[in-house]
């Protein structure tokens, strides 16, 4: 089963002969260089046999076209992690040249990485990035002296503002057209400084050398922190950091929920109900005679009715706005700050602050979150994160559907649902933290500077994500819509409903049409909610119970597939069965208790 966001593997990428690699530390601004150099046709792929993904795009320089590869950020080339191993494989795959982006605010560590890269016999152009931030921190760097020390060109840049990008391209052109220095017999007779020949294999030596070079090229000056720098610092302190964090979360929810509702009611619903559906009704009505086929296609539950209504009006606005907000928080450096602030709470839940980013991603879609849990350093932590996402985190499509479901009732329902989700999250995480064997490593993260994301790279990221969603989620969504239409319009539903009646009507107290939600929820999560929207006269309690089932219900088919792939079939089955039981148990309990009280 193809799943959303699952990326294809490209075994041939190492063999490509027109490769230019973009390398450097994480958060150094590589993707900003990438998006300003490539066009719109960029592809995200996975390295064959690994869990590491990269982005590649075509890049025109003068007359020639090259393949620019955004290699995932690494702090070193020590092969201590999978990402570093991939970076090493890339360096060994005969790239034409390397653009190494250096973080001017952290020169020593970056020069060390630069020295590591110079060991491979590949032409390198260095981009000395984040110079603006370094300057504000009171650091002045002599780029030409650094170029001499490294024996390779160094271009000063401020990538977010596109400063220095043209110069970098010019320099790259020069490097690419230069003849390789064959027959370099040794350094003594060489007129130019050629440190590539002299780089030590000993790690300690290179650290020492990085330290010496840094001391030579860097000068302390008077820095003046900008507003964003100061805000970034404040956000790291519990006061005012935690109130700011809560404000950001509320604001994000407001944009997604409020914006989604507005888009839906003002633009998308009228579009679907007044234009798209009548259009298809007219065409189909002219070809197909009234009857079962007509109903399956364009009846109340017809494929062409709910197909457009659910996908375009119900799901799309929320998915789009979620990624608008999430990508912004990601690129601006807000998320790592949340990780730091909430590490203590996460630690008590048996995981660590860094995993918070992965779990937040699960509010978009569980599949990338489960793939993203690869960044967890131990298997135990991966399992906990994945289980938490499956048990208690609604994906954005589902959230959208839940918001629409609760729209007719008191907003308290939505708040209660949020609290319920948090409670289940804490319970699952705490229980697994105690039950599962193994360790969870403590957090070690670098907090990047707070900044306004670069427009182009932000748009590129948003586009890649929306494209993934549209391509990958459409299949399962259409499948569940076809099933829904067939079940409902052929009368099959009534037959099945008889068997599930005791659970649906007895235990959960829902009308029998809700059966369809339970069946479709297996295929996609929002489909566990969407059919409830079509039932008229639901009480607030019924809506809440139905919402609870959906919230806690088993992960959709794509998630089941990714669990089986990333862990094994056993884990996938255990999670599916236990979420299913848990959902029916909790929702039924709420129904029964509410009836006792009321």
């Amino acid at each position, binding site marked *: 089963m193809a799943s959303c966001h699952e990326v294809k593997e490209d075994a041939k990428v190492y063999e490509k002969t027109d490769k230019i690699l973009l390398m450097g530390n994480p958060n150094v601004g590589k993707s900003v260089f990438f998006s300003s150099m490539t066009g719109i046709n960029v592809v995200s792929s996975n390295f064959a046999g690994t869990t590491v993904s990269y982005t590649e795009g075509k890049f025109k320089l003068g007359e020639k076209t090259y393949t620019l590869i955004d290699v995932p950020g690494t702090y070193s080339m020590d092969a201590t992690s999978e990402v570093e191993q991939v970076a090493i494989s890339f360096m060994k795959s005969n790239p034409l040249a390397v653009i190494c982006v250096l973080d001017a605010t952290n020169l020593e560590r970056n020069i060390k990485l630069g020295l590591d890269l110079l060991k491979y016999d590949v032409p390198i152009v260095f981009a000395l990035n984040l110079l603006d931030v370094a300057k504000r921190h009171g650091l002045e760097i002599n780029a030409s002296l650094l170029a001499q020390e490294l024996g390779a060109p160094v271009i000063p840049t401020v990538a977010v503002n596109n400063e220095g990008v043209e110069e970098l391209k010019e320099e790259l052109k020069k490097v690419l057209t230069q003849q390789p220095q064959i027959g370099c017999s040794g350094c003594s007779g060489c007129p130019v400084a050629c440190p590539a020949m002299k780089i030590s294999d000993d790690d300690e030596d290179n650290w020492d050398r990085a330290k010496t070079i840094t001391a030579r090229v860097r000068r302390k000056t008077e820095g003046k922190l900008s507003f964003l720098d100061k805000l970034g610092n404040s956000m790291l302190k519990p006061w005012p950091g935690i109130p700011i964090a809560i404000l950001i979360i509320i604001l994000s929810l407001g944009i997604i929920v409020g914006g989604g509702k507005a888009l839906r009611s003002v633009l998308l619903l009228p579009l679907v109900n007044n234009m798209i559906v009548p259009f298809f009704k007219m065409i189909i009505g002219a070809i197909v005679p009234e009857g079962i086929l007509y109903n399956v296609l364009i009846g109340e539950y017809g494929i062409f009715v709910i197909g457009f209504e659910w996908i375009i009006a119900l799901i799309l606005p929320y998915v789009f706005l979620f990624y608008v907000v999430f990508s912004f928080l990601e690129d601006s450096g807000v998320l790592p700050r949340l990780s730091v602030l909430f590490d203590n709470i996460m630690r008590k839940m048996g995981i660590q*602050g860094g995993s918070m980013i992965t779990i937040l991603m699960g509010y978009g879609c569980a599949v990338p979150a489960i793939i993203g849990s690869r960044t967890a350093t131990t298997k135990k932590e991966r399992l906990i994160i994945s289980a938490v996402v499956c048990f208690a985190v609604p994906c954005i499509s589902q959230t959208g559907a839940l918001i629409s479901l609760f729209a007719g009732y008191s907003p308290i329902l939505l708040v209660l649902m949020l609290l319920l989700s948090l409670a289940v999250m804490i319970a699952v995480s705490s229980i697994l933290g105690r039950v599962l064997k193994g360790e969870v490593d403590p957090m070690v993260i670098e907090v990047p500077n707070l900044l306004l994301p670069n427009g182009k790279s932000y748009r590129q990221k948003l586009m890649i994500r929306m494209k993934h969603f549209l391509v990958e989620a459409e299949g399962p969504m259409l499948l569940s819509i076809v099933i829904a239409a067939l079940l409902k319009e052929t009368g099959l539903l009534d037959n099945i409903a008889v068997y599930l009646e005791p659970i649906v009507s007895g235990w959960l107290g829902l009308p029998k049409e809700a059966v369809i939600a339970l069946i479709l929820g297996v295929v996609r999560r929002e489909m566990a909610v969407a059919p409830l929207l079509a039932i008229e006269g639901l009480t607030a309690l019924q809506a809440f119970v139905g919402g609870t089932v959906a919230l806690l219900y088993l992960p959709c088919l794509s998630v089941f597939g990714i669990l089986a792939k990333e862990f094994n079939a056993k884990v996938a089955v255990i999670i599916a069965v236990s979420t299913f039981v848990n959902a029916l148990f909790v929702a039924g309990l709420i129904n029964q208790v509410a009836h006792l009280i009321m």
Partner: protein
Amino acid sequence: MKKNKEKKISQNLNSIYQAKDGKEYVITSAPELGLLRSLGIVKDKSIHKRMTYRLGGPVLIMVESSEIAIGKDIAEQILVRG
């Protein structure tokens, strides 16, 4: 301090977790961890301690100009002198 079982060699030798906020320190010993090493958190490196978060939260330090948060359990194993 109870977790810090190693015999203190001198008075000013302590873990970065307990060290006072807002001061410069030199690392005397750090755990052998690939990531710490790549981040430049190694013996003899000077670092600036910003703060320790309450309730078992991490330690925030500055290495050069970059801020790095380190979970309690590792931070307790990074020993520094003032």
